[in-house]
């Protein structure tokens, strides 16, 4: 067998370490996984502020149509479309993915696996740079002639394929290019995550000793890699339709617009699980630490995650029940869609079983983790109505759909992120966050979140269509009840957005004056807590050995209620 261990070339590449790195080397062109994680994290946060601001503007238009929105002005129908489209795209591609997968993945994978960096540090750096470029390209689309793309983040042709329909000749192409660049960045990141986890684990760390969050990020990366290809091909075809005048999606000239929907949702539905799984993993790690109990069924969670991943490739056409697909096909996709709730429900039951009988501490990260379970359940249960083709035909394209997917994405991208961020903050920055402020922030955010989307379930059932920029022209949608619910949702949104100031205040004051965190403030088992806080370049002076699984809490016969993975006994 011919093997070429990487050491063969190591001699060439090993330049001496410079003790002093310049500002640019340390913060901008760093290859250190922790710095790249920070870059992803803070870029994602900045994008979340942009996406949140967009939602504020169009929600104001919903509640007070035609009004002069503070910090924006009058919302024209074109601006409304652009805002909604880019809110969706930003929150999924430029917030949920970079924060949940890239930031936590980059930060946690090497630390939790006990190695000094990702296996391809420079590829990692390139991945972030392309990601940043994609965000800048997206922003540039707002400033070209015709303005930013407004054909929804799903980019359905023929609306997206022709400038005379979308009225954004430049914006729509730049939008597709930005999304494609973002995919390239995450393909690079994904290859790095999977290869690192397969090859660079600490000596002694077996498959079932890998912390759940790492497993979930790896499964998510594989799902992403396996599902995004057809959409990349589709994006090329769409750009050709837009710029060269081909007719892949133009039914008048032999194309098929439904083809795009298949290519998009073949990626788009697994994508839901791509962002869900890391959040589920974060929650698993947090609830075991804060209930001082072993994860109820490690292998069940792992296998259900894999089952979810496999099933997620068979559900995509439930987005097309009213797009004119064969009703027999709709039956098949109803069955697979309802089936996928089984593994997810199983995970939730495992988490509840883990909590059962534990010594629960309601610290801020734990509150977020529990908040995730509670809110995500609502999202999952309302999905049943939409997965069943019969009820979906009625509810399709109403605010019910919108409320449903916000009840899944919000717990994932916002609640999951806050859970992870508050939990690993001591490790990332060496300081503790303020618990009181953290709890106030949690309660306002979670209550206000429910205040936004609970009313929208109701407006959706009452028939409110989600793509109307001004309801006043439809008398049946302009009733006092609907308007009241819309206004309620908008007020809740404004409260929710304002509450984030508390978080940023807490973040900055904790960074400056927070209590020093030791190596292991939460008394957790996983390897990252054996490094210094924050870990230096290279993470450990001597890389750790692993002797057991990550969830050995309250083991009978031990004096302490935790048993770090790196202790021989």
């Amino acid at each position, binding site marked *: 067998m011919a093997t070429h*261990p990487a050491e063969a070339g190591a001699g060439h590449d090993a330049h001496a370490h410079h003790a002093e790195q310049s500002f640019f080397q340390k913060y901008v062109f760093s290859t250190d996984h922790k710095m790249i994680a920070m870059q992803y994290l803070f870029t994602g946060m900045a994008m979340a502020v942009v996406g949140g601001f967009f939602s504020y503007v169009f929600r104001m238009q919903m509640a007070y149509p035609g009004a002069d929105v503070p910090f924006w002005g009058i919302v024209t129908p074109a601006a409304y479309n652009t805002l909604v489209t880019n809110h969706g795209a930003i929150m999924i591609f430029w917030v949920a993915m970079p924060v949940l997968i890239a930031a936590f993945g980059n930060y946690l994978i090497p630390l939790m696996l006990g190695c000094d960096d990702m296996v391809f540090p420079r590829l990692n750096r390139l991945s972030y740079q392309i990601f940043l470029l994609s965000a800048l390209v997206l922003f540039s689309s707002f400033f070209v002639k015709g303005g930013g793309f407004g054909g929804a983040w799903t980019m359905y042709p023929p609306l997206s394929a022709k400038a005379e329909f979308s009225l954004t000749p430049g914006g729509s192409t730049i939008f597709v290019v930005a999304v494609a660049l973002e995919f390239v960045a995450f393909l690079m990141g994904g290859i790095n995550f999977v290869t690192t986890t397969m090859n660079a684990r600490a000596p002694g760390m077996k498959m079932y000793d890998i912390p759940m969050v790492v497993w979930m990020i790896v499964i998510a990366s594989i799902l992403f890699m396996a599902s995004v290809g057809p959409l990349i091909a589709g994006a090329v075809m769409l750009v050709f339709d837009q710029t060269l005048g081909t007719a892949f999606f133009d039914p008048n000239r032999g194309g098929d617009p439904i083809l795009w929907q298949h290519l998009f949702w073949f990626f788009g539905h697994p994508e839901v699980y791509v962002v869900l799984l890391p959040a589920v993993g974060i929650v698993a790690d947090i609830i075991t630490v804060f209930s001082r109990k072993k994860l109820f069924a490690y292998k069940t969670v792992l296998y259900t995650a894999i089952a979810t991943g496999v099933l997620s490739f068979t559900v995509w056409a439930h987005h097309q029940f009213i797009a004119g697909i064969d009703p027999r096909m709709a039956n098949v996709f109803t069955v697979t869609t309802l089936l996928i709730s089984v593994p997810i429900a199983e995970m939730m039951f495992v988490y509840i079983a883990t909590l059962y009988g534990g010594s629960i501490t309601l610290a801020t990260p734990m509150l977020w983790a529990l908040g995730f379970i509670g809110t995500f359940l609502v999202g999952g249960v309302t999905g049943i109505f939409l997965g069943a083709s019969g009820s979906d035909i009625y509810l399709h394209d109403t605010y019910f759909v919108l409320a449903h997917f916000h009840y899944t994405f919000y717990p994932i991208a916002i609640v999951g992120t806050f859970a992870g961020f508050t939990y690993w903050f001591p490790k990332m920055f060496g300081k503790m966050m303020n618990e009181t402020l953290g709890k106030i922030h949690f309660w306002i955010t979670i209550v206000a979140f429910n205040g936004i989307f609970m009313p929208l379930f109701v407006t959706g059932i009452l028939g409110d269509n989600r793509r109307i920029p001004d309801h006043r022209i439809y008398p049946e949608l302009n009733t006092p009840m609907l308007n009241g619910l819309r206004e309620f949702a908008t007020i809740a949104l404004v409260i929710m957005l304002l509450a984030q100031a508390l978080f940023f205040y807490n973040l900055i004051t904790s960074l400056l004056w927070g209590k020093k965190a030791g190596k292991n403030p939460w008394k957790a088992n996983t390897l990252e807590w054996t490094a210094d806080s924050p870990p230096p370049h290279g993470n450990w002076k001597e890389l750790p050995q692993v002797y057991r699984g990550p969830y050995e809490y309250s083991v009978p016969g031990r004096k302490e209620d935790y048993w770090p993975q790196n202790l021989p006994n």
Partner: protein
Amino acid sequence: MSSARPIATTRSTAGMPTGRLAVWWLIASEIVIFGGLLASYIMFRISHDAFAEQAAHTNTWIGAFNTVVLLTSSLMAVQAHKAADRGDGPGAARFLYLTAAGGITFAVVKALEWTSEIQHGFTITSSTFWSFYYTAAGLHAAHVLAGVVIMLIVAASAKRYEEMQRVELIGIYWHFVDIVWIFLFPLLYIAK
């Protein structure tokens, strides 16, 4: 700018060198890109009889010639891997140059072929068949050109006995590019 290679890169818990593992994952993600494109093409092909008339205008002999060129270049990539295994860096580089020459020949023939087709009025907008023809073959040709560039870089370092493990990696990638063509050739040229 490049710092020392981290210890992580030199570990191989899965029993496979890290570089080779990563190339396989890269190829896995590429397979779905071409898979999505070709699946779309096949769906159209089955439901549109007009595709067959259009496909009759492609030149099977040029396609066959290019197939032979690519397969031969893959043989050279194998020879380069063998030379690298023996520790013969300059030998590996020589075979890589031959492989790259195959890739360049392929691209030149493709360019001439497209020129003549465009002159006969078959452009990317002529019909959906030609849109797929140029998109699929163009995406593949972009992979060929990228492969040639990477191959020349790898050859230059192999010549100095550096990073010899990369000879195998670019070879794996080149076989993948080759296999994509093995799918494209019958789909675009033979099925008429």
